[in-house]
């Protein structure tokens, strides 16, 4: 990375500057996560040409439209299967899935567990703002109990997912959670994921000041960031069964899972070689121009 002239923001080369300012609300943490992502790319010295970002639908889904790499804004919940096809057809790509909690865990829940089970080499950054923000603040599978949303106007009452627990159980090899307050740790986690092979998952807790916080009189984005600062407890290696979130309780952050397991391609390759020997023809990059 060459030294930039001093008047350029180091994050600018990673953004489609012709689309900035972005649409995210004041105090929304998605921008902060993209900021950390840019810094992680710098520190990891990622070859940007080989980087592909795949997102779904929602506020976080809009990330694909702002990052200055090959980016794919797919359908709601289906970023992971798209990314699976992209990665398997072109394994030299570094494929990041950047999407929200509703997109990845409600409509996309089935794809999430299978991508983790397969251990496809994908880096998943899940911005968890505990709500469906883009569509106006409906309940998400991560929304805690006893909060007001537009589809639970009298208060939520059912259970919410513990994302790290779910993803670990499904088979992910790297599972971490930070909040948008933890800017350095977030960037470091993203950087760690880039150098780890397999299904890596980072949950980033973020404010949604316009909908989640406002409807529940929890203040604005800054108040929420201060809340994260005061209520977060770093517990690296904590059992994921113990890191569930609640409306106003402790937020356990840290790196919870970092283990080794062959990724989908390696497993496929090994099995094919075992069964077919010399007859196995590996295609490194599917090239349809012959």
């Amino acid at each position, binding site marked *: 990375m060459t030294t930039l002239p001093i008047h350029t923001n180091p994050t600018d080369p990673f953004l*489609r500057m*012709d*689309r900035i300012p972005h649409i995210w609300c004041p105090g929304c943490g998605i921008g902060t996560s993209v900021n950390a992502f840019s810094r992680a790319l710098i520190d990891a010295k990622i070859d*940007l*040409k*080989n980087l*592909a970002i*795949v997102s779904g639908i929602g506020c976080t889904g809009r990330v*694909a*439209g702002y990052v*200055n*790499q*090959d*980016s*794919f*804004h*797919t*359908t709601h*919940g*289906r970023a*992971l*299967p*798209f*990314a*699976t*096809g*992209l*990665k*398997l*057809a*072109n394994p*030299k*790509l570094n494929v990041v899935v950047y999407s929200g909690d509703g997109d990845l865990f409600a409509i996309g829940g*089935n*794809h999430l567990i*299978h991508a983790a089970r397969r251990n496809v080499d994908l880096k998943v950054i899940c911005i968890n703002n505990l709500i469906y923000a883009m569509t106006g603040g409906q309940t998400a599978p991560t929304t805690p109990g006893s909060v007001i949303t537009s589809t639970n106007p009298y208060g939520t009452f059912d259970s919410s997912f513990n994302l790290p627990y779910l993803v670990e159980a499904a088979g992910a090899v790297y599972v971490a959670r930070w909040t948008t307050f933890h800017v350095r740790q977030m960037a470091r986690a993203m950087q760690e994921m880039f150098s780890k092979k397999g299904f890596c998952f980072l949950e980033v807790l973020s404010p949604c000041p316009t909908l989640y916080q406002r409807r529940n009189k929890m203040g604005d984005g800054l108040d929420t960031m201060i809340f994260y600062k005061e209520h977060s407890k770093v517990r690296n290696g904590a059992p994921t069964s113990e890191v569930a979130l609640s409306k106003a309780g402790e937020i356990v952050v840290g790196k919870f899972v970092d283990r080794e397991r062959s990724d989908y391609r390696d497993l*496929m390759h090994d099995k*094919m070689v075992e069964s*077919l020997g010399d*007859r*196995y*023809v*590996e*295609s490194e*990059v*599917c*090239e*349809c*121009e*012959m």
Partner: protein
Amino acid sequence: MKMHADPAGVLTGSHFLDGDHACCEGALAGGARFSAGYPITPSTEVVERFAARVPTVGGTFIQMEDELAASIAIQGAVWGGAKAFTVTSGPGFSLMMEHIGLAAMTETPCVFVDVQRGGPSTGLPTLPAQADMMQVRWGSHGDYEVIALCPNSPQECFDLTVTAFNMAEQYRCPVFVMMDEVVGHMTEKVVIPPPEQIEVTPRRYTLLPPGEFNAYEPREDLVPDMPRVGEGYNVHVTGLTHDERGYPNMTPDVQDKLVRRLQDKILKNSDKIVLFEEAQVEGSEVVVVSYGITSRVAQRAIEMARDQGVKVGKFRIITAWPFPEKKIKEIASKTKAIVVVELNLGQMVREVERAVSGKVPVRFVGHAGGSVHKPEQILKAIMEVAR
């Protein structure tokens, strides 16, 4: 622009194959090196064969968790550089509808094979129908056009699958091979030529360098060149209405320009896309219009009618969409009545009626599905309108 097929995927020779197996070979010959699928009768054999064949050809098959995943995984693979397809039947086809729209909107070349079975819903998993014909055209939301081809034999399952991949690349759209359970499961001779005799259309990548290329700027044929992912083009692909850079631009003007072009690139080229078979139409009293397996039964009925002295013409639809409107209008001007036979309760007949615009009577011989027509049913209709 065409090239010869990659020999690795071509099983040259004379084979005894059913339609599903022949379709798989057509995909391989057409250059498919990625497939994502989900088991559903009566289509599963296509991907089962692909799973067995492609590791020795050089490619990947992955069984996904559902048809929603399969129908978008192939699109990821296409952007990764591969030719890709998926295979399904009615219930799975319904699940794929959103992603068919995505492929149309993002101009992702890919092939979907629907081996039609009795419906609606779970219906008749092991028995034929041709009742997804309107769905293939209108199933996803919004305005868009597709290309759909109907084979009537295992040989055509091979040939038309190759054609499907070529058309997908040429028009950058989803292309459908509308088989049915009988064509899929009937076993006949399939001749696979040597690779030099199989023409394939390569993907038209841009020759412009990054920075000069607009991902959705069309060429003269209304189709944009494709960018290579991983080469610094920083392409942005979105299902949102977008401008020629590919950036979301949700205004009525951009919407009109984009969506009309998505339709025009197919409709304005329909002369090259519409495939059909016609015989003895000129001076006929009746023309029988049919497609797929039904056309095999119709052929028998036509011969029986001719034996009885009726001048019967035949029009077999091969390209169902874009609908062969011009040809049907032409037929209506050359004959006195049209009989439409299909394995449903009235789908393509509506298009025929629309094109004919009342010029000649149109008689429909339908069937709810589960078995093919009997030739006598069709013969009866021919004789009645001929009078």
